[in-house]
Structure formats: structure tokens, C-alpha cells
């Protein structure tokens, strides 16, 4: 219940923050919404000696568009994502995902940056970012660099984020107008991580699928981009056969573990169900 001791830092700018992280080294952690880090600290599974609170840094929040792209400041909370008229219009799949993350209080504090940066395979947003082919801006002492979400995740809790860097912005091209979308997550109760989840974005044209993107959550060490599953839909009428093929292809790349939510075979099977249901709903939404 009681965290270990640490020194608290509250920089006013990103530059100040990355300098602090660089100077303080490995024993310093950035503090975003804190709803992944602080619970770990309370269980003493994490005992950083320094916390660098990003909460007062202006310019890290906000949802905006820039040309065809949508930009999310890393400190934008899940609640703010749910409130965004821009996202409702341009990328509602993000809102569907935010709705099934945690609970109302946690959503008021939890940030999109925090959800995508720490490499927890149970988090929902990384899969969304793979599906949307988002790019992360990582800011360090040497300035900014962009890493594709699809390249970012290496293993559970291991990402391309280097010591001294913080994720400051997420950018993705808004899906085509009239796209179909769905985030399907099976969980035991509100607040739970997924038994398995699938994010699907697709476009239909003349009764055939003209493009698809499918990502899988919590069925491997990292979120997975289901390339073959998506391919199985393109050019088809997204009929039962195509959906079947997509589900099978998704299951084929999954590597879930057995835990209290169920054994491996269950999670694989449920993944198939999530993919099927997500595709069906996405198709029904496509114009």
C-alpha cells in the first residue's frame, strides 16, 4: 500500500523534463497519469528514486488535426479522448477502445501516452495504434525522433523508448471517410484487461473490401498486427468465408499465455471470436 521514497520533480517544459531524466538516469521515471506506475509503486514492484511529473507541461495535451493527420498529445487522458468531437467524427474506434479501458476515475487520469508507452501487453491502445499505423514522437536530449507504432514494441515491457526519452505525441492518418471500424474486447468485468481483443478498420468499395487493418491485443508479448488476417479480407465481400480465413490467420500468429482468465486454447479461441465480431461490426459500419 505504501510506496517507497522518491524525490519529486515538476518540470514546466518538455526540455526540462528530458534533461532531468537524462541527468537522474535509470532511477528516474516519468509520471504521466500515474495509473500504471503508482499502483506498481504501492506494491513496491517499482521503486524509482525520482519521479518526473509531466502533469504541468503545457503543449502535451490535446487532440487536433493537421492536414489528413490526427495528432494526440501524449498527456491527453482517456476521458478527453472520449470527449473529443474530432475523434468522434474522424476516428471513433479510439473512443470505442477508450470506453472499455478501466473505469471512469482511471480514465480521468490515465493518458494515451502512458497507455502506449510502457509496453504492457494488456493495454488496449497499443493495438489501436498498430491498426491505425500511428507514429510516436519520442523526445530526448538530442531532440525528436519518430518511431512507427508497428516497430515500437519488442517484448512485454520492452519498447524502442530509450532511457531519457519520453513519448510526447502520437500521429496517425485519419482513416478514410466512411470507413468501418470496431474494437471488440472480451473481459470479465469493467477494469479487466482483455482475454483477447481485436481492432479492425476497413473500407468497402462496390461491395468489396478495399482495405483492412487488423491488430490483436493481449494475445502475445506485444500487440500484433494481423497482416495476413487483413489480407484475407481485401478484395472479398467480407463474407463468412473471408471472415473465417481472417480469424484463422489471426489465431495463427497469436501466442497467448495461460492465466487466471483462462488457458491458452481458450484465449486463442476467443481471439477468433473477437476478430469475427469486430470484422462483422466494422463491415456494418462501413459506408
Amino acid at each position, binding site marked *: *500500500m*505504501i510506496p*517507497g*521514497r522518491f524525490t519529486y520533480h515538476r518540470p514546466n517544459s518538455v526540455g526540462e523534463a528530458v534533461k532531468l531524466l537524462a541527468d537522474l538516469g535509470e532511477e528516474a521515471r516519468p509520471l504521466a497519469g500515474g495509473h500504471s506506475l503508482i499502483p506498481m509503486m504501492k506494491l*513496491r514492484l517499482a521503486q524509482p528514486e525520482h519521479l518526473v511529473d509531466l502533469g504541468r507541461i503545457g503543449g502535451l495535451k490535446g487532440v487536433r488535426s493537421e492536414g489528413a493527420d490526427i495528432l494526440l498529445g501524449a498527456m491527453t487522458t482517456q476521458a478527453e479522448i472520449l470527449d473529443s468531437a474530432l475523434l468522434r467524427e474522424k476516428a471513433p474506434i479510439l473512443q470505442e477502445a477508450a470506453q472499455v479501458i478501466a*473505469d471512469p476515475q482511471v480514465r480521468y487520469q490515465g493518458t494515451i501516452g502512458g497507455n502506449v508507452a510502457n509496453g504492457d501487453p494488456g493495454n488496449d491502445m497499443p493495438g489501436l495504434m498498430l491498426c491505425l499505423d500511428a507514429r510516436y514522437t519520442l523526445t530526448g536530449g538530442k531532440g525528436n525522433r519518430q518511431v512507427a507504432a508497428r516497430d515500437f514494441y519488442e517484448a512485454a515491457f520492452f519498447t524502442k523508448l530509450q532511457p531519457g526519452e519520453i513519448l510526447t505525441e502520437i500521429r496517425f492518418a485519419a482513416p478514410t471517410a466512411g470507413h468501418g471500424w470496431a474494437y471488440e474486447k*472480451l473481459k*470479465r*468485468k*469493467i*477494469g479487466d484487461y482483455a*482475454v483477447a481483443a481485436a481492432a479492425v478498420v476497413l473500407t468497402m468499395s462496390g461491395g468489396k473490401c478495399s482495405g483492412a487493418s487488423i491488430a490483436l491485443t493481449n494475445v502475445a508479448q506485444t500487440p500484433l498486427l494481423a497482416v495476413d488476417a487483413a489480407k484475407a479480407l481485401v478484395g472479398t465481400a467480407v463474407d463468412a468465408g473471408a471472415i473465417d480465413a481472417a480469424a484463422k490467420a489471426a489465431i495463427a500468429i497469436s501466442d497467448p499465455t495461460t492465466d*487466471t*482468465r*483462462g*488457458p491458452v*486454447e*481458450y484465449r486463442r*479461441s*476467443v481471439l477468433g*471470436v473477437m476478430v469475427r465480431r469486430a470484422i462483422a461490426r466494422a463491415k456494418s459500419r462501413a459506408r
Partner: protein
Amino acid sequence: MNAPTPTRAEREAALKGMGFSRRRTEDARFIQGKGNYVDDIKLPGMLFGDFVRSPYGHARIKKIDVSKATALPGVVAVLTAEELKPVKLHWMPTLAGDVQMVLADGKVLFANQEVAFVVAQDRYIAADAVELVEVEYELLPPLVDPFKSMAPDAPVLREDIKDKKDGAHGPRKHPNHIFEWTIGDKAAADKAFAEAPVTVKELISYQRVHPMPLETCASLASMDKIKGELTVWGTFQAPHVVRTVAAILSGIPEHKIRVISPDIGGGFGNKVGVYPGYVCSIVASIVLGVPVKWVEDRLENLSATAFARDYHMTTELAATKDGKILGLRCHVLADHGAFDACADPTKWPAGFFNIVTGSYDIPAAHVAVDGVYTNKAPGGVAYRCSFRVTEAAYAIERIVDVLAQKLNMDPAELRLKNFIQPQQFPYKSALGWEYDSGEYPTAMKKAMETVGYQALRAEQAQKREAFKRGETRELMGIGVAFFTEIVGAGPSRNCDILGIAMFDSAEIRVHPTGAAIARFGTKSQGQAHETTYAQIIATETGIPADLIAVEEGDTSTAPYGLGTYGSRSTPVAGAACARAARKIHAKAKKIAAHLLEVSENDLEFDVDRFQVKGLPEKMKTMKEVCWAAYNNVPAGMEPGLEAVDYYDPPNMTYPFGAYICVVDIDVDTGSAKVRRFYALDDCGTRINPMVIEGQVHGGLTEAFAIAMGQEISYDATGNVQGVTLMDYFVPTAVETPVWETDHTVTPSPHHPIGAKGVGESPNVGGVPAFSNAVIDAFKHLGVTHMQMPHDAWRVWKTAEKLGLVK
């Protein structure tokens, strides 16, 4: 100018006696955040205690080094078993006749067992100090499978009693054996089975769970060395028992100990027993002479305080071909963890499990229970279920369903066929209980009619066909449960806690201006006693409930009682309440007669006044009588108006109910959606319908959680799982179904107001209703039983084995 005389209805409404949905008086403080829970209490100089706990399930302790911890600034003391030995408190007696380590003495026997108690200036320093205590362990082979506990080569867990061939309840068969308890007529039962044309048998396991009240356990002990007085605030469902135990263990005379249960944030049985945290905070305060507070974390609560259930019940029924039950046999393997800390009345090591004949007229029955030790947390307690009653109800309600399935009979019809009939009450069961009253067929038929049972079965049949045709991926299940539970412990002839008979008490004192204060030996943890006891008194005396203060929980003022658990408050203290109120009524009547200059026999009582029969305008209100009690009583009568009653119940009470649950199971994910849940409860006389409904809602929600996902489990190495809210299934408002409640009223003939108690009925009846519903969905495919909890993945596995999953 005279005010118009209020009508009788107006007077009844002002009285707020029994039967009214009186709003709760306790709410005023809770809705404003002014409750007074143990952790809200702060005393000058107060220190804080915290535990070092074992990471291993079975290990010898080679060494404990507290030096780094004691060197931390702000740490005042670190206690280990060594420090408790001189006061003989390194072990303590349990409620079940066993002994339990307070702090690990030479070895640890379950994961998260208490090893050392750090006392520091605040909880942050205490937490830091806990990390600094170094313990060297030598691992021992863990025993977590109760079925293996009595194997010849099983590791011996309890070295302290390994040579004891006798336990508290008779001979032990093995060093890991605790007791064997049998009841019933084995010969008659065996004969019934030998001769019966139809028999069914299932291993029905009721998984280990935990009552998980929202407030964890806590104590604040304050020893005043100058006065020699110990005050302990704590989360105690039975404060007087704690006081008596504390006096015996500490040597401080009982009149110098004051135990106070302030507001308690839920108990559900978790807060009945005495825990190492309480003992350590008391010892630390006695030694240091300052207040010491202990508040556990949720992880500690779930993994180290008393669990519930963990019963493996091999249950059999013998019957005729047309479904008349002839006999029941049940063998239970009871996993008690490392110490038998079961909170049962002394003579009942398996609680009242022999209620397992349930609502049915079963001529021959036999039960045998073997309790065993394992490397798990000690216990178990009655998690909202009276003593082992939920286990028994689950066994009988499941096996009756299994029998119905074998006979191809509808489960409701089979129950109707075997009910104890109204004319059979009081009914002596084959396992020794005398059920007080019941109208089972009426309740069952009302339930079936209200839910449209026949139509539901028809729908189920149609849906099964639709499933076969591939038109739906859902299977529909209908669960029926008709429970009879046994509560209100209990008569002194067979119920005692550590030798103290299980009576309860009420003390009522009426003030001159017509208000009153009443104190009881029970202790509410949310059951609205401050509101409902006043309603009983109001009806019996004519003093408005709003003018009656109710107090519980302070042993310096409350009359001795055995506390609140097992739904005993209404049956026992509620009876004492009514009887004490009637004593006041009787004296008031004499005073009224005196004031009116008539004979008592000429008076009748009308809501809140005594009036002369046939001449109602010649009357005295109770308010006037209260004043007169202090200045104008008949010659020879003592002034004042108060009464005490200690009630030794002549029998237990037997609430019952008919529950029907409809589920739709999504076969591809195993998720079961509760479409409808109807609960009809008969708790006899209903004191406050609003409170009863709230109890049913809460109990059903706990039952839902148990049936559908709650589980505390141990892996092969003795690590405990499911002990944080990440994993322990506690549903939110989203998962929790909507509850439909209904009732019949069959008063208890032996209870002064005919009330039976209701708090635990919904958990007792709810679990089998949910479980029967889930299993019912697969019955047509030959499934006879599925082990709880019915997590989605377990349900899915059943579906998968049946070849249903695509």
C-alpha cells in the same frame, strides 16, 4: 385549543413500528462522511503496526534479523514469536478448539503468514521497516491438495500436535487430520441406497472464497498503564467474545477491558474471529503503554484472514423411479488450511452442515465430514451463510437437480414432489434438526407462476432446437433453487462459542419525556440495527421509533451478547428486544391502569396508548405513562421504566426461499448473461421491508460473484492466487444483474414476533440458483455437473468438450 385527535393510521405512521420501510437512522452520518470506522480513530501518541509475512507456503524459519528494521528512525519495536513467548501469546486458541500461531514459531504454514510485527511512528515508516526485516527460510514440501493430505507420505504440517492422537472433536486419523464428524443413521441410509432403484452421486466442490468486506480488518489497542485498563477498538462482529478472550489470554481482568466495535464497513463473517493483528496490536500497546493501530491491506485480508467454504462434498441421493427421495449420503472433505480457525459453535466442527437434507422430506440420511490441514490460510468462516449452510444448500440443490436429470423430470416438479409439507411442521429431519415452520409448495408455485416457468421451459426447448439449426450461438439455462437454511444460533443446549452459550440480549431504558435508549449484544456491520430494533420496540411499547436510540458494540455499556453473524440478530437479539419491550409494556399497562383508576383487565392497547375497553376516550398515551413512571407509580412499584432480557432461543429458525434464475450462455466465449433473477424469500415476520430488500440485493450479488468467478487458489508450490482485486472477482454495477424480490410470510411459531432473519438467505439460495442455471444450459447434452466458479473459460471448456465450439 385542542388539536384534533390523530387517526390510527396517522399514529401508526408516526410510530414507524414493524412492517414499515422506515428510513435508516444510521444513514445521517454515513452520507456525510462522518462514520466512525476503526481507521478513522486517532489517539495521541498512536503508533502503527504492520506485518512481515512469509513468501512461502511451508518452510522452517532459520533466522530472523530485525536489526536493520529497528535501526530505521521512527521504528519503536519489532515483535517476533520470541517476544510473545514470555506472555504465552505466540499461539492463541481458535474458535474451533485448535491453536493458531500469532507469529510464526519455528516454521510458516501458509503463504503470507505473519512472521514479525513492526511498530513505528506512522504507517509509512512501518511499511519501510517491514522491507528491512530479513528472514532466512528453509523450504519444506508444500501440501495444497486436501485429497492428498492423509496420504501416508504426506508432509506433516502441524508438528506442534503431531503426536496428539485426539483433537478437539475426537480421534485423528492422521497427523494432517483434524476431526471426523458424523451424524445421521448410517445403517438406515445404507439400506435405503442398497434397495433404491435409482441413485445419483456427484463430487460437488465448493471452492475457497473470501467474504471480502470493503473495509479490511483493523484494531486500535490502547493500554492505560496507570489505570490498568485496556481499550480496544476493532472490526469485531462479536465484541463481547473478544473481550472475554482478551481477558483470558492477557490476564487483565475482564472489567478492566473495554472492547468497542465502532462502525464496521461490512463483515460477512470475515470479522468474527480473532486475528494475529489484533493480538499483536494489543500486546504492543500493553508493552509500550501507547495506543497501537493495525490496519491490513487488501492483499493481507484476502490471503491471510479467514477464508470461506473449501468443501468437497461427495453427495448421493437414493430415490424411487418416480422421484420420491429415499435417502441421502454425503461425505465432505473439509480443507481448513494450516489451523482450524473455523468460526463455528463449539460442538459443531462442520457447522450446521446437517441441514443438507434441505427442504425435502428425506427419511434416511447420513453425513460424514473429515477436516484436514493444508498449507493454506486458516479458517473457514461463514461468508454470509450461517455455519456451513451455504455448502449444504449447494450440495442438496445440486444433487436434486442431478436426480431430476437422471429421472428426466423437471427440477421444479421433483422439488414439489419431495417438499416437507406444511402439515409436517415442526419437522424433525433425519439429521436431527427440528424445522420450525414452512409453506414450501406455496412459495414454489408463486415463484414459478411469477416468472412464467412453463413458458421459460418451452422457450428453452425452442432455443435448443434453434442452436442445433445454427440460428443462435446461445444456450439458455433455467436454475431453480429452493433452500431452507438454519440460522439464529442458538439454543444453549447445543450452541456455545468457547463455552459461552449463544443467547443474546436487550436492555431498554425509557426516559421521562417518552424517549428511550436500547442496547444489544449484537453488532451491525450494515444491517440497519439502529433502525430495526427501534421498530420492534415501537410496536411493542407505543414509543415512536424516532424517539428510540439504539446502541451496540461497546462492551462497557452493551449487555453481553454473542454478536452478529449467521443471521442471528433478529432471531435471538430481536427476540430479546421484543421480550424486554413487552416487560416495559406490562409495567406501563399497570401504570396506565393506576392513572386511569381502572383494573388492568379493563385496558386495551391501541398503537401508542392504553384505553379503557369500550370507552376509548378514557385513555393515557404511552408518552404520559413514561412521565408518570418517574413520579406517579402504583404503591409498591419501583419508579422508572426499564427492562433487560437475555434470550436463550428454544430452537433455531428456518427461513426459506424459492429462487429462479435464467441465463443465456454465449457458447463461443463461455460468458453467461443473467437474463432474469427472481428471489422469493420467507423470513417470517418482516420488520422493515426496505431493509430486507436491501439485504436480498446484497446477498444475491455476493452469490453471483461466488458462483460466477470468485476463487482463491493455491498453486503446487503453495503460492496463493486471486488475492488482489485485480483477480478476485467482485462485480461492479455493470456486471451485477437486476434483482426481482418477492416474499411470503410464514412466521416462526417459537419466536416472540415470528421473525426468522434474512441477511444470509440470498447467498445461501443464490449460489445454487446461479450454478443450477449454468449447468441446466448443458443438461440436454448429458452434462450432470460443472464445478464452480462458472468463469467464462470453464463454461467454454465444457462447451468445447461437447463439440459445441466452432
